[in-house]
């Protein structure tokens, strides 16, 4: 590991200081650590080291050295390399340090790694009796986030079929990360933990987000509010014992006794499921189409008993 650390530092210094792109051969003959390698060993090492640089956040670029694009060289632009200074005050740095200590991303403290690059983690008083893990695989999240900010299209496997998406935004909601965007079939939402074989498009800036797009408004919907079905207005009664619980989900004031609520339903299936999770403590009063749906659902369950 010591050798790798030294070699990568030397390589990075060489790339930052060279006024023009340098070829792999020049790297091999100039940078300490590659000199005595065979062709094959060199190429293996160099590939690995380039990957390390990318993972460190170094914007390594490949550029043609001649008009015929026969020879290519590598370069790192010092201005692109430098982390932009967000201009944080001391107080802001402390607040971020507290937050980054508390919150993990798929088990990793990516926020703390970021703070280190921004000048280190600030001391904060006491130990927080609080912690949160935002789940999901940090690498996939990072790649999707990069695709969103750089406006690159992505392709991935989702439930064994391939999807294409222009990603507009992502959200963490109810324990899962979601990515939202435009697919050839229209606006779609995918769960990040179900995404496999993610590929990010090579070209940036290939689409633009619709005016006024806000991922929050899409994510705020309850399951029965979206689904493309014909909207019906349902009237429901909840027993006093569960009324507070239902009121929180429906975002209405908590009643003192029982709750009678009117709900816009666009997805009967999801709505009926939610109502039945209350057992006999909730009743749909109208419309009859939903009452029929519940009756047939319950009958089917009874018919299926062993």
């Amino acid at each position: 590991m010591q050798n790798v650390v030294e070699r990568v530092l030397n390589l990075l210094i060489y790339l930052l200081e060279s006024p023009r792109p340098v070829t792999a051969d020049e790297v091999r003959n100039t940078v300490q650590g590659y000199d005595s390698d065979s062709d094959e060993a060199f190429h293996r090492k160099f590939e690995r080291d380039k990957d390390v640089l990318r993972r460190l956040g170094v914007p390594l670029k490949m550029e043609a050295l001649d008009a015929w694009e026969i020879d290519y060289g590598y370069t790192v632009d010092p201005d692109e390399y430098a982390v932009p200074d967000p201009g944080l005050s001391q107080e802001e740095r402390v607040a971020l340090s507290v937050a980054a200590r508390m919150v993990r991303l798929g088990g990793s403290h990516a926020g703390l790694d970021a703070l280190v690059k921004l000048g280190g983690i600030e001391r904060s008083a006491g130990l927080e009796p609080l912690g949160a893990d935002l789940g999901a695989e940090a690498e996939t999240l990072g790649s999707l986030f990069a695709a969103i900010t750089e406006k690159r299209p992505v392709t991935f496997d989702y439930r064994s079929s391939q999807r294409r998406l222009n990603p507009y935004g992502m959200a963490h909601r109810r324990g899962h990360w979601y990515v939202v965007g435009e697919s050839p079939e229209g606006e779609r939402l995918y769960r990040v933990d179900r995404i496999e074989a993610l590929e990010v498009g090579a070209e940036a800036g290939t689409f633009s987000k619709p005016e006024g797009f806000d991922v929050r408004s899409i994510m705020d919907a309850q399951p029965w509010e979206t689904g493309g079905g014909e909207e019906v207005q349902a009237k429901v009664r909840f027993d006093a014992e569960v009324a507070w619980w239902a009121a929180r989900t429906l975002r209405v004031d908590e009643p003192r006794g029982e709750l009678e609520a009117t709900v816009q339903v666009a997805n009967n299936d999801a709505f009926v499921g939610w109502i039945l999770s209350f057992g006999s403590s909730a009743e749909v009063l109208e419309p009859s189409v939903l009452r029929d749906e519940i009756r047939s659902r319950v009958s089917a369950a009874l018919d299926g008993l062993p």
Partner: protein
Amino acid sequence: MTSSRTISRLSRILALIPYVLEQGVADVDDLLERFGYTRDQLTRDLNTVFVCGLPGYGPGDLMEAYIDEDDVIIDAADYFTNAPRLSPTEALGLLAAGMTVIGMGDATPALESAVSKLTRAAVPDAESALTVDLVDESQNVSKLREAASDHRVVSITYRSVGKEETTQRAIEPWAVFATLGRWYVMGYCRMAEDERTFRVDRIRDLQFSGEVFEPPASVPEPVVGYTASADDVVCVIDLLANAYWVLEYYPVEIVSESKSKIRIRFSAPDPELPARLLLRLGRDARLVKGPEVAARVSELGQSLLETYR
């Protein structure tokens, strides 16, 4: 593939150098704290810096780096006056951490302004593209966190998971945490006379009792999820494709899987929860085994058919 330990080491070195260069002379203790170093690690990294530099690698080409009593000095490293830019994962990690705390309704103005500065600097377009929300509809997370910090006993009205019943109990909160999108409070439950973990969204009322408790010397690692007990009602259910979401929402054990269905074992403290689940799944699931659950499905189903006649 190069190990992530190598990456973290390099990342820390590339952040350390610009910081020390900017300070001119840096204090050892400040560096240990700020970059999470032990003194040995810091010495080792400075020794590495000291042997790297420009091609030629003669004395005049290498960086200078050394510890002089309590001071750290780095020189001849002008190409490293800035740390590398944040990787997307790092930017996301920091923004998400800030947004999580803001979402709890606990944010200071400093945190809000820090997050908006970061957003502008790192991802100009992310303002409306990223949201992190650990829903706390109950507004109880802040109160519980306060109680845990000050060791205050709270009494809660709690709707238990699985049993679907509401109880009143006094708890001594030790830690408040979020995982899988939900907030939990862990501590000693005076009703159960044992350690318990509660879902914050299922707490209806919360009051400080006025009493202060003695916290444990060390808080055990919190356990989330349902732990099956010997008294549990167990049943076996076949799920059809439309009901596969159950696997993500309930702690179930997969018994077998075929092309068209998944057979699961479901444990719960009483038959109510699996019975309600079977009713809402209708023809998308079928109970295979579990006489108590079958009886409850039948009873509850009949009463629902009565209601919806």
